[in-house]
């Protein structure tokens, strides 16, 4: 069910259950709010392992809706590719000041 359709380098993202904040998963299954610190994988077996870990029991009370997203490896760390994920990682592109 968690079969990846994406193909390239991928990382796991979710929202924190209590706060709703955007979080990304590291290889050890811990969560960070900094996308650059996420762990990504390309090998399908490793990708599968990441998403299975994200969906495993203890995460049910830590995060909501873990999913795989396409990322790129940049000098500063992992970076999202799609606009939606860029906005999720960085916040709204508009700020409120009147």
């Amino acid at each position, binding site marked *: 069910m968690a079969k990846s359709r994406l193909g390239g380098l991928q990382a796991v993202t979710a929202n924190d259950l209590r706060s709703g904040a955007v979080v990304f998963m590291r290889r050890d299954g811990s969560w960070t709010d900094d996308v650059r610190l996420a762990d990504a994988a390309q090998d399908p077996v490793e990708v599968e392992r990441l998403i299975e870990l994200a969906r495993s029991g203890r995460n049910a009370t830590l995060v909501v809706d873990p999913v795989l997203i396409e990322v790129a490896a940049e000098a500063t760390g992992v970076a999202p590719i799609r606009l939606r994920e860029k*906005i999720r990682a960085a916040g709204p592109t508009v700020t409120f000041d009147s």
Partner: protein
Amino acid sequence: MYRYDEFDSAFVLERVAEFRDQVARRLNGELTEDQFKPLRLMNGVYLQLHAYMLRVAIPYGVLSSRQLRKLAYIARRYDRDYGHFTTRQNIQFNWIKLAEMPDILAELAEVEMHAIQTSGNCIRNVTADHFAGAAADEVIDPRPYAEILRQWSSLHPEFTFLPRKFKIAVTGSPHDRAAIQVHDIGLEAKRDSAGRVRFAVWVGGGQGRTPMIAKKIRDDLPESELLAYCEAILRVYNLEGRRDNKYKARIKILVHEKGLDDLADDVELEFASIRGKSLDLPAAEIAKIEAYFAPPPFDELPASSAIYDVAVRTDPEFAAFARQNLAPHKINGYSIVTISLKPIGAPPGDATSAQMEAIADIAARYSFDEIRVTHEQNLVLPHVRLDDLPVVYAMLASTGLATPNAGLVTDIIACPGLDYCSLANARSIPVAQRISERFADSSRQSDIGELKIKISGCINACGHHHVGHIGILGVDRKGEEFYQITLGGSADENCAIGEIVGPGFSADQIVDAIEQIVATYLELRDSPRERFIDVYRRVGVKPFQESLYVNA
């Protein structure tokens, strides 16, 4: 306005306690996300891109100063110091923690507010004309009926798991400011020849993927049968509405597939067994609710005001505001003031805590403590004396709330779009901001005249693009934001769904395209009195297409 009695207060507190328990069960793992999601949605809690969003119900858009101050407090204490007023006359807070949600609902209960049924497949917050009780053209005040519908629809045991969401709007004016024909049920209160209240009942309107204008199913429903008839419609919809495809689950599809006559037959069958029983509304009960909406103690004033007239003559900025943001009041010497939440270049519908507090203070002093929220994402002071308008204007101006653009090209409706919403395909707010900046010049705007631009970031159409004079729909084309333009939509009594003008435009092109459409209108109009929508209805889409795609 309506005030909670002990029953209402007890109900809301029970509901807060219930939700507190549900949140606790989610956090401790007893409830899975699948089980919890519909429960949180029933309390207006969404999970958006960045955080949880709480949508608070503002029944038919009516607020007291005390309530608005509480919303400001919640924005400051629990959120990022601002809130977003929506096209359902509600307010959304974008950065709320789930664990704090029960406390916020308890805060809201203190000022007779809640978030019940602001989401989910149930009867949503009932909306009404935002000028209710004030508009000069009003025949019947729709608020008492909206309140009765609000009560009846609250946690209705039969209609909490409908095929899809269900929206009801009520107006009591021949000029429809509540967009009743794009609602699941639209109600127009009017008087028959004997002076009795009757409802024209429209059914099956809606926007979204398949926009449809509602059809009139009854023209003469007695007010005593309002609930019984709505219950009959809802029952038929609950049983027969499609549940196999969420894009075909609204009642508009049932009306379309079944046909109005067959649907009306089924409704009448249910109605026959419901009417004349416990849902019948005795006149005395309606009168009890109406008493809450008795007119405030208006002064007897002359129809004109010297103070106002002098200000218009001597202060061109006030004159521009007066020309654009005032509407005629039913009582001599009073006016309705629209507070634009569309300052040039700002996100449509947002207000800071400080602004909400400023408006609450002004309303307390100058508008009988009342504020309205419009489905066009503005606020309204419904009852301001003409004599007080210059000082009210000055107070609004000092907090950035006196933009004189109500109904003009920069008074744009926009959904939150891809900046906040997990359903969106493209951003809406930045497009609105850039259009607003392009047309910032006040005299240019007023030369263009009435022009309603409405922007949605996806096909769900929360930004009402189908009924914009100019509608903009954001789509995702191979990872790029693209914008499709529709022309000629209208949400009023001459309801129309806009027509797609042609291929979409990139984010870089969209503002130029809008400007080209406006230029075409200015060339085509017979006189400055002929509005954009009038020209469109006269000439159709073709001249706009030609200029748009030839020049592109």
